[in-house]
């Protein structure tokens, strides 16, 4: 399902002394099958953008097109359930949304809200719990008896069981240990590939963005600062560094090396393998371009 934000502006608490412009003139296209990363500092408007993707927020200016539906500031929206089912959002710290007596019931909550039968929901719960790397026995436990990391996975399973076409992730790995991070990100990446999902990842981690995304959007002060492929974004890292944003370790290494040896490699490398090949090639030739 294609999603497209067109010149979207959003103000919080319009007509009060607390009125605040969160995002302005944001245009982002997310064609079906894209893996998009949204990067920016806290308060740059990332989370506001994300809530427009399944019509939790209605833009105060501009429009959002989700599949065939058009969300505009004026039109009163009815029956948004279909959108909610097709666009699953994993919020930051999703473990806070758990509430049922058992893990199974909690995972079934989403699908059953969208009219799936109990049996089908339970089947999906079984599948989802496996996908997030938890044993099936956990289904009968109370979600509040689990560890933080397990709760996070259960919450994610709850969204996966809705079987959305687009999955939106708001810093899904915040507060997890490095191994948990990698496992969860790899899981999303493989789902993205096998199910043909569109994935939108809001993150602080440049490493994740460069490793998984095919499109990156940089947000700054509520506006789109830059968008492009990881190569385009990271090949001119000066702007990013000026905003106080990081660049991936590999890019940082390459920059430093180029500076101290006063050479310039032919391209910006995003993975360690690419960089080593590039360096090997330079050493073979004896000179850099």
């Amino acid at each position, binding site marked *: 399902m294609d999603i497209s934000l067109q010149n979207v502006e959003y103000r919080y608490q319009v*007509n009060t002394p607390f009125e605040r412009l969160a995002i302005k003139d944001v245009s982002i296209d997310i064609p079906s099958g894209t893996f998009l990363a949204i990067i920016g500092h806290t308060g740059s408007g990332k989370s506001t953008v994300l809530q427009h993707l399944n019509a939790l927020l209605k833009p105060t200016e501009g429009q959002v097109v989700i599949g065939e539906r058009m969300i505009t500031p004026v039109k009163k929206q009815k029956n948004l359930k279909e959108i909610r089912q097709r666009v699953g*959002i994993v919020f930051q710290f999703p473990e806070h949304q758990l509430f049922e007596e058992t893990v199974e019931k909690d995972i079934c909550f989403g699908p059953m809200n969208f009219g799936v039968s109990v049996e089908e929901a339970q089947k999906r719960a079984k599948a989802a719990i496996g996908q997030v790397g938890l044993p099936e026995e956990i289904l009968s436990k109370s979600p509040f008896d689990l560890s933080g990391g397990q709760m996070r996975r259960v919450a994610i399973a709850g969204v996966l069981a809705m079987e959305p076409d687009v999955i939106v992730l708001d810093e899904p790995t915040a507060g997890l240990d490095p191994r948990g991070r990698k496992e969860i990100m790899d899981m999303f990446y493989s789902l993205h590939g096998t199910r043909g999902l569109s994935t939108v990842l809001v993150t602080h981690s440049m490493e994740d963005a460069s490793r998984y995304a095919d499109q990156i959007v940089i947000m700054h002060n509520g506006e789109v600062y830059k968008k492009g492929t990881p190569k385009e974004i990271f090949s001119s890292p000066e702007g990013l560094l000026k905003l106080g944003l990081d660049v991936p370790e590999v890019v940082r290494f390459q920059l430093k090396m180029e500076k101290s040896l006063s050479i310039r490699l032919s391209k910006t490398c995003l993975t360690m393998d690419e960089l080593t090949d590039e360096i090997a090639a330079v050493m073979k030739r004896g000179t850099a371009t």
Partner: protein
Amino acid sequence: MMDKMIFGRYVPAESVIHRMDPRSKLVLIFLFVCIVFLANNMLTYGLLTAYTFFMIALSKVPIRFIYTGLKPVLLLVVFTLFLHLFLTKEGEVLFRFGWITIYEEGLRQGIFISLRFFLLILMTSILTLTTTPIEITDGLESLLNPLNKVKFPVHELALMMSISLRFIPTLMQETDKIMKAQTARGADFTSGPIKERIKAIIPLLIPLFVSSFKRAEELAVAMESRGYRGGEGRTKYRQLSWGLKDTAMLAMLAALALVLFLLRT
């Protein structure tokens, strides 16, 4: 959804009312609540209303903001009006239509009592809109201090108050967040039959309870680990200072009370 709530909300601004000592504001509101009952005719109610709107103007809080914030409460005011209109059966009959009869006294009382109610709400809103929760508790603690002599736990009470006030916005944010998360999972809080809607609250309430308990425990641990042990010998970072404007404000209210007393029938 919670955006428009003004209950317990502080609107920062530079105004006389904002700069007043919280103690004088508390005393002023307390006295106002008493003298509201002095008014019993058009003139006195007019004076009270004028005074209230004068105070709103002084506070520099946009009136439109107060209006949108108080809309739900206005409903209650209108309800009071109608109760009196239909249930008071004194004085001349003004109007008769089918089974509805409206008496003169009913109209009079309805208007006066709902107006009184409305003014009280306005004045107390000015207090909370112009005073930070911390100031209110500081003021209250200082006003209640004499009760310490009879072993009344003033400091603990003030602490409880400031903690609960402090966490209102946090709880609101949390409610908003969890509501959004559950809405994204297909929960529906805004439509459907009453029974369904009540059921829909469970996925909201349970996470809120869980996180509140967790937060309370974290707060207790944090206080304990910083060696908190109550108010004894504790000095204050914010010092309260009673100024000329405080005395002047109270004097103005006293004058109003006197005039009301003379003009009431």
